[in-house]
């Protein structure tokens, strides 16, 4: 097996297979269409190839990928796309139908990205607010605020306080 820039291709494939779905979901929530989401997934793993970080475990690896994917998606809109299309209008511009969505997913996708990401990481991936804060480089109280707002917008019947 040949080597990539800083990791062997074998290592890269293993990491890819472990986390591609998570990375794809993060990217999709930002990009709101398959085509751009795939581009961002590729960019995330290309960034992984160039990065020298030695991961302590799979969770560390996953957290790094989530943070990198989030930052790359934000950068995508920050650089040039944001001049014509805001991050929340991207889905309307896209001609491609993203997924066979139900009403729940449509509501989630309609959330602003910061709430959406926090909701995904908390309810789906099972991270605590502290962990989400570390991944996204935000204060845990800020994350709790995002979750509170996101839950309110989704009218979720969830338990009260966040951890």
């Amino acid at each position, binding site marked *: 097996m*040949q080597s*990539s*820039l800083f990791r062997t*291709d074998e290592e*890269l*494939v293993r990491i*890819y297979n472990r986390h*591609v*779905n998570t990375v*794809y*979901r993060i990217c*999709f*929530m930002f990009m709101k269409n*398959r085509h751009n*989401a*795939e581009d961002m*997934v*590729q960019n995330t*793993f*290309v960034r992984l*190839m160039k990065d020298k970080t030695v991961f302590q475990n799979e969770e560390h690896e996953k957290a790094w990928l989530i943070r990198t994917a989030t930052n790359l998606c934000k950068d995508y809109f920050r650089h040039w796309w944001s001049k014509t299309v805001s991050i929340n209008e991207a889905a309307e511009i896209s001609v491609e139908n993203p*997924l*066979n*969505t*139900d009403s*729940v*997913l449509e*509501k*989630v996708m309609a959330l602003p990205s910061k709430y959406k990401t926090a*909701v*995904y990481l908390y*309810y*789906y991936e099972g991270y605590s607010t502290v962990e989400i804060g570390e991944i996204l480089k935000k204060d845990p109280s800020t994350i709790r605020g995002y979750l509170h707002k996101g839950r309110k917008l*989704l*009218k*979720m*019947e*969830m338990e009260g306080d966040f951890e």
Partner: protein
Amino acid sequence: MKKEDLKVSFDKIKPSESAKKRMLDNILNYSERKKGISMKLFNYKKAVPVLALVIVVAGSLFAYNMLKGNFNSSLPPENSVTDDAGFGREDFAAPLLNQFQIDGRHYIILSDELKTEFGLPDSVNENDIGSKIADIALSPDKSLIGSEVYSYIPAGGESVVAVKKDNEYRFSGSLPLKAIITTRMKMQSNTLSFMELKKRMISRKFSL
């Protein structure tokens, strides 16, 4: 909305198998392509700073030499000794040979050129050897120490003397050379007088 509904909805967001394979292929292709590019750029990226450094150093040396006034493309500086003399370090200084000192006067063994120039014969005629002056006691040339020094009668003084070394007489002249030149003029004068005298004798002989 319940938590379970949310999980089910998020489960729907996932790439198809073909999309996964396509993305992975693209990533690995990028890896290969990037390696090729990086290999090509490697020398270039290294070469540019090295080349810049060389230019800076060369420029600095050039500017330094220009400011110092030492810059000369090919010719050596004036009054400098070149070629083989470049080895002429202090410890390569030529030893002083064929010189000695008697009573505060410095003498030098005359070379063939000097002998010719000053009108001296190639070899010393033993009949012209006068009295012994001294033994050489002071000389940088160790081989001369102990040699006997005799006066040379035709010179009429001690400016030119004969040094006996290895049972052979050699001319030696005192320094400064002015004395030698004086001796030479004196010898020439003596020769002229001798010729004049001889001419007179011949003319007298014929007249008789």
